[in-house]
């Protein structure tokens, strides 16, 4: 790191401390939480209607529509359509989308509706437009808001009541969380990716390891990641129980932001970068907890169970519940293996799958698609396997098409679809049938998450691509072009 650190501050502070401190409107007391200012509020169709209804019932307006932006992503169809055309969405999904449009029109909130060239998954579009910047506070009624922490922003998911609070006041009532340093040293081997880092962190620390904490990812392996890879890591902070996960901004961050629609320009850019360079945690800043991981020891990871903590190296064997450290874990593992129809000691390599899903706010950015396409070029999706490729935004889709990636996927027999959450959450028609197995680049393998009765193996885009080609769970390192 060559960025200058602040030496004026008497007590060394973390990136989190600095960002939190800069947004305190009213300090926390034993009786009351802090009033924390929100710089950017992202809104989508699923978690906002009741908040707007609440606002209306109290006769309130939106305080800062100019700090708020809405998109349609969760329940939107991803069936291919002509550019700029607007699909007709029926049923409850259609009603919910129409309600968002009405709410945005009534309260003056900018909306990226279906048909807009920038529509996409809420956590893909913020960074893409340059709205996500270091040192900001960013919230959304969505737990994967942690994604934006990749820029050194304090970003976390909130409930619908809190969405209403932010709409009305641009503020939230918050108790200051504890901090946890997640240090990832060493270098990743080829074929091992950012997704494998975060799956390994969660497998090591558990799905509640970060409860009450904000993560700061650091170390050589994190510094070496691109912005899109950093977003993949921060995205799944919530799967480790942490509401937020941050990475100190550096030149990688600034290069990514520069020139985007909402990025500062000219002198304002220079001033912004100078400020952002003060954000990284000071030397000697203390964390409530520190955990470490060695990236050079990592293999591609895959989950075998029904929460994201039930993960292992792809060449390992399904663990035996009878070896679990306590009754609770034994029971959880028993239940998970029953749901997944897997046996203790079984290898996952070579396991047949029905579906491969490449998408979601974890892994649907252009670099994810490039990685998968590079492996799939000139190869075909295995007989009997359905592969969905769902870009995270319309912009990602255009870019991929300009690079000919869509042609690679299509030629391989994969479905090239429109931007949205799709089979990550199965709120539209993109879903697994009961009993089907899927390798998925998304973030949750909970029972039924990808469709009632569906069984999910979470993995990286490379693992997904390799598995699509062979039809069985495959270690991408064995088939790199």
């Amino acid at each position: 790191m060559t960025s200058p650190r602040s030496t004026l501050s008497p007590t060394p502070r973390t990136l989190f401390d600095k960002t939190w401190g800069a947004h305190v409107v009213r300090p926390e007391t034993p009786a009351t939480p802090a009033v924390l200012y929100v710089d950017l509020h992202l809104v989508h169709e699923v978690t906002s209607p009741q908040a707007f209804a609440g606002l209306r019932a109290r006769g309130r307006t939106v305080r800062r529509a100019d700090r708020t932006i809405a998109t349609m992503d969760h329940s939107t169809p991803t069936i291919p359509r002509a550019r700029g055309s607007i699909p007709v969405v029926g049923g409850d999904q259609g009603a919910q989308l129409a309600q968002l449009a009405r709410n945005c029109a009534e309260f003056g909130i900018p909306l990226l509706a279906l048909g807009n060239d920038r529509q996409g998954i809420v956590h893909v579009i913020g960074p893409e437009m340059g709205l996500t910047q270091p040192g900001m506070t960013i919230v959304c009624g969505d737990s994967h808001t942690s994604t934006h922490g990749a820029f050194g922003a304090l970003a976390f998911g909130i409930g619908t009541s809190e969405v209403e609070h932010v709409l009305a006041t641009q503020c939230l009532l918050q108790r200051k969380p504890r901090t946890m340093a997640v240090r990832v040293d060493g270098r990743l081997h080829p074929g091992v990716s950012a997704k494998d880092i975060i799956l390994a962190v969660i497998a090591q620390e558990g799905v509640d390891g970060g409860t009450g904490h904000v993560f700061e990812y650091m170390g050589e392996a994190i510094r070496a990641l691109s912005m899109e890879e950093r977003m993949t890591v921060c995205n799944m902070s919530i799967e480790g129980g942490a509401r937020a996960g941050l990475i100190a901004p550096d030149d990688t961050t600034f290069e990514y932001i520069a020139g985007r629609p909402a990025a500062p320009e000219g002198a304002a850019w220079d001033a912004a970068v100078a400020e952002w360079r003060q954000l990284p945690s000071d030397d000697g800043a203390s964390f409530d907890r520190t955990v470490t991981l060695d990236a050079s020891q990592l293999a591609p990871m895959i989950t075998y169970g029904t929460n994201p903590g039930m993960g292992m190296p792809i060449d390992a064997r399904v663990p035996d519940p009878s070896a679990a450290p306590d009754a609770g874990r034994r029971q959880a593992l028993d239940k998970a293996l029953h749901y997944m129809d897997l046996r203790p000691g079984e290898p996952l390599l070579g396991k047949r799958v029905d579906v491969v899903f490449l998408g979601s706010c974890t892994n649907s950015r252009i670099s994810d698609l490039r990685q998968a396409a590079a492996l799939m070029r000139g190869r075909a999706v295995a007989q009997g396997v359905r592969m969905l490729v769902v870009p995270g935004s319309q912009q990602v889709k255009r870019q991929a098409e300009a690079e000919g990636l869509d042609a690679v996927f299509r030629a391989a027999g994969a479905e090239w679809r429109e931007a949205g959450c799709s089979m990550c959450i199965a709120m539209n028609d993109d879903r697994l049938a009961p009993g089907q197995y899927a390798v998925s680049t998304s973030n949750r393998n909970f029972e039924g998450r990808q469709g009632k009765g569906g069984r999910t193996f979470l993995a990286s885009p490379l693992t997904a691509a390799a598995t699509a080609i062979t039809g069985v769970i495959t270690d991408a390192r064995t088939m790199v072009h």
Partner: protein
Amino acid sequence: MTLTAERGGSETARNADGSEVRARIVRFTAPAVLLLANDIDTDQIIPARYLTTTDKTGLGDKLFSDWRYDANGQPKPDFVLNRPEARTAQVLVAGYNFGCGSSREHAPWALVGFGFRAVVARDFADIFRNNALKNGLLPVAIDAAAHERLVASLTATPGASVTIDLADQTMTLPDGTSASFPVDTFAQHCLLSGIDELGYLLTADADIRAYEAGHPGRIRTSGVGAS
């Protein structure tokens, strides 16, 4: 069953912004049922396919839908919410890390819709705990020893009653022992008096304006291509 929660409907009880207060929660005694699993995620509490609603109500029937109904939509008789004792239950007892996963407030809405007023667990995921408190659903985290006694009592007598006292932050178990539980002071104050957090937040208006004057911020969402 004795319910000492009262409606805070007097003329003088108002939120700071003048809006009406909700039912106060002080202390109640009610039957409890056991759903002994750890890491129960919000996708189980309320599956995503029911999130297309624009209301908070009507989700009680969908609570734990995938565990509760078979492929034909018929109640599975062995699932706890389908047993007779669940009909009057107001307290759900689970394992650790209850409510992990998605931030959907539909999870507490569904639990409240079913009739639950408290969830007792070893501990809770952060966002769920916040969401629950905002809907008058008490997240009661008790220690391992008390949890073990509670599980033993409810295994022996499904639907046995517990008393939850928010003012004292104690829970009385069916075996007569008691356990304490933590509650954020501010959330407790709001629940005990029936006021909501937005009412309080609105009183910070002058401070918010002062903050905004000193922090113009770098981004505007208008003009980035949205309509």
